[in-house]
């Protein structure tokens, strides 16, 4: 038996969550499918003309991505709660802070990251100017990471409830708003040919705050949810 370093523990935890996601596929595919399906509804509803759809595209893309992340975040701790893994995590000598960080990071890898990578595809369908593509992918890359952290807090608070879905949205959506504002604004600025590094910097700052702080809240919320 060999004692693991901190990074070894983190890698082992993330690896397991990725394995689970790849085996069951639904966790991987659902947010992406939702993102693509709902995104395709807009050209059908509004009409495909670039003049009408183009200006709306940044907002649409970001709102749909946000909803896809919200949809995915409910499941972060759900199966672990149901099958007893969460109990084992709470009893682990490894700090719950680290476990929460690893779970959230793994969740971003299977939900937010593919979303950000796929977004240019949907953006083409929504007539977003090509110049805004890098801004879209970058803002989603940073933004979904923040959303995963916030979503994890909501998921941890509601995991003990049988039907926590609606409550989760009520808790999490208000906290999603600043991310949406700066994310959509970065894409809009890029589409108009303006600099967008300011908005990305704000998203980066949010991420820098969320990564160290959110796991504290997640850990406390998990203890509360299991304490019964």
């Amino acid at each position, binding site marked *: 038996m060999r004692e*693991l370093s901190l990074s070894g523990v983190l890698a*082992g935890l993330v690896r397991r969550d990725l394995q*689970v996601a790849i085996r069951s596929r639904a966790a991987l595919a659902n947010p992406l499918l939702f993102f693509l399906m709902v995104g395709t509804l807009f050209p059908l509803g509004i009409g495909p003309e670039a003049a009408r759809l183009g200006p709306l595209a940044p907002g649409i893309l970001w709102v749909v991505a946000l909803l896809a992340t919200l949809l995915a975040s409910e499941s972060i701790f759900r199966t672990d709660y149901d099958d*007893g*893994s969460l109990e084992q995590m709470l009893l682990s000598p490894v700090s719950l802070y680290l476990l929460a960080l690893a779970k959230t990071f793994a969740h971003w890898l299977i939900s937010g990251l593919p979303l950000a990578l796929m977004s240019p595809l949907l953006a083409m369908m929504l007539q977003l100017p090509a110049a805004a593509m890098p801004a879209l992918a970058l803002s989603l890359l940073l933004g979904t990471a923040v959303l995963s952290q916030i979503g994890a807090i909501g998921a941890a608070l509601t995991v003990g409830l049988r039907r926590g879905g609606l409550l989760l949205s009520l808790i999490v959506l208000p906290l999603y708003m600043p991310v949406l504002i700066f994310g959509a604004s970065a894409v809009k600025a890029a589409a108009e040919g303006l600099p967008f590094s300011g908005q990305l910097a704000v998203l980066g700052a949010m991420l820098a705050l969320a990564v160290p702080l959110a796991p504290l809240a997640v850990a406390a919320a998990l203890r509360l949810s299991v304490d019964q």
Partner: protein
Amino acid sequence: MSQPLLELRDVTCERDGYPLFEPVSLTLSAGSVMQLEGPNGVGKTSLLRVLCGLSSRYQGELRWRGQPLDRAAFATEVIFLGHATGLKLTLSPRENLRWWGVLRGFDCTAEIDGALRQVGLLGYEDVPCYQLSAGQQRRVALARLFTSTAPLWILDEPFTAIDREGVAQLEEWLLAHAEAGGAVLLTTHQPLTLPVPLQQVGLRPAQGEEYSDNA
């Protein structure tokens, strides 16, 4: 007299402000096996969850190795096996055990084969757990006991879904663990036939008086 590991002083679990059972005091020493008994719903599982640190809904005092129980230090010394196995069904026994080792802060890859052989699952290391029967899944969970050196085992109904032969084996493991200086606290309705001094503690339902918060 061997060293006392876990001590409970007038501990009772509560639900909605009411105590679940009459306060119990007990001492679990190294080298002993203790069986918690009581009718369904009396609070055996609740008590085990309190002891592990999963639940804070209790009154009374817990001590570990003579000191007030410190959760962080205690976590490295106890293994808890609950009703839920804590297995991911899409993963193989080997992957599940490796993850569990990581949770303990160890890379136990080398121990996994031995542990699975011990529980009679050699040949099933890389089969997804959903293809295993309930009893075999329970055995995978029990294999954790052999990938760790924690002295205290807290087992909630470990015999669930285990066949007759397995029950005898599990009793042997409990015995071997106790003889090696460990301690076992378990709940089961199965009559145990252990040659070690088996302590049996019965929980009695509390009479319905309300618990005062300032007690």
